[in-house]
């Protein structure tokens, strides 16, 4: 197969821009998802009446519907009832809506895995509930949930591939456009795959390394 290297060199900036957009979207979405997940999991852990039920419903709704449909609803559906958002906002809101539930479950899994003796020891030295969460449960829960948090980060980064469906010039859209305009299919696809490898592969390597590291940070049991 003969690749047109000139074409590849010329399209690099386009892919560069798209990767930058992907990173930007993923960064905000991951950050917001983590914050949302942390808050929600604490609420669920302490079984706050009323709010817990709403969060539970949100988790089920978010986990059992595809991101594509969530984005279409946000982008095409909501403006009809008066809520208009830009493409970028829409993508970040959609990704956060999806990611928030995954992060909540990851944190909660970690909190529930903190051993009972740790909680009881904390209570017996007279820590308040807030102190218990702040100094005993959350630091340990965080270490325990790192593998699943990492998996979610990669998951969200990969899910950004869908935002092209709401007219954002992401990697998928760039590749599709180039194929449509120049018929350089092999080159465009090669760059597309390479772009995702550059984005996801280092993260996946770092996370599996981190995962091995944090095993030492687990206490109790």
């Amino acid at each position, binding site marked *: *197969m003969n690749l047109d290297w000139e074409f590849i060199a010329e399209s690099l900036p386009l892919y560069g821009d798209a990767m930058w957009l992907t990173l930007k979207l993923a960064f905000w979405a991951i950050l917001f998802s983590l914050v949302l997940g942390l808050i929600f999991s604490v609420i669920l852990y302490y079984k706050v009446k009323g709010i817990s039920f709403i969060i539970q419903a949100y988790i*089920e*709704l978010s986990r059992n519907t595809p991101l594509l449909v*969530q984005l279409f609803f946000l982008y095409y*559906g909501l403006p*009809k009832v008066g809520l208009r958002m830009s493409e970028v906002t829409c993508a970040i809101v959609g990704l956060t809506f999806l990611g928030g539930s995954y992060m909540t479950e990851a944190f909660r899994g970690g909190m529930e895995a903190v051993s009972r003796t740790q909680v009881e020891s904390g209570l017996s030295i007279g820590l308040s509930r807030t102190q218990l969460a702040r100094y005993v449960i959350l630091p340990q829960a965080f270490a325990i949930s790192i593998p699943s948090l990492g998996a979610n980060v990669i998951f969200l980064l990969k899910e950004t591939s869908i935002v092209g469906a709401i007219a954002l010039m992401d990697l998928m859209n760039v590749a599709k456009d180039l194929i449509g305009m120049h018929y350089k*299919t092999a080159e465009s*696809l090669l760059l597309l795959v390479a772009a*995702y490898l550059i984005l*996801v592969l280092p993260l996946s390597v770092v996370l599996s390394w981190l995962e091995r590291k944090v095993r030492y940070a687990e206490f109790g049991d």
Partner: protein
Amino acid sequence: MQNSGIEVLFEGSNFERLLGGLLVTIEISFVSIVIGTVLGIVMGLLRTLNVKLLQALLRLYLEAFRIIPILVWLYVVHFSFTPLLNIDISGETTSILVFSLWGAAEIGDIVRGALQSMPKHQEESGAALGLSRVQLYRYILIPQAIRRMVPGAINLATRMIKTTSLVVLIGVIEVVKIGQQIIELGVIKAPTASFWVYGFIFILYFAVCFPLSRISRRVERRWQN
């Protein structure tokens, strides 16, 4: 909210058409899950063997699907088959191919995980009884492994159903596409249609996936003890 919104769902055969579209999605997922499970079981068994090169290859195969988004896979297969191999395959075939291969990779990993998590003494007791390798798998390892595999497999099934929503992006006529057609047709008569149609599709997916994830959670809890 304008009046001519929600009615669009029930106009003419719109309701049936949307359900029919959902069926296309479910069909693609179902066929892929079946093919993926069969291939995946073979792969999972192969991964428990101690052959270095085979291990490396199968691991690479799994990681390829874990690292590269499924939509990229759909694009790669969809756009490269015709020019490279000079055969014309439909969006449905492309989708089934990609989803089956993805399913095989994931099921393979679930099967491997289940087989390897089996306590060593199970295998040793079987061997001590004088069971052959085949009997060992047939009567001891596989029946126990299945219990550990089912929750993960159901989870994968819901993930696959959700992910098949992407096939609209390579031109398969499924529920989202039919929704778009309905919206376009009614653009003047029912300006708020997209809110209701996408909202309805949202609910449709939820109605399919929610029971599945409930079953998976229940099975997991019951079989853990």
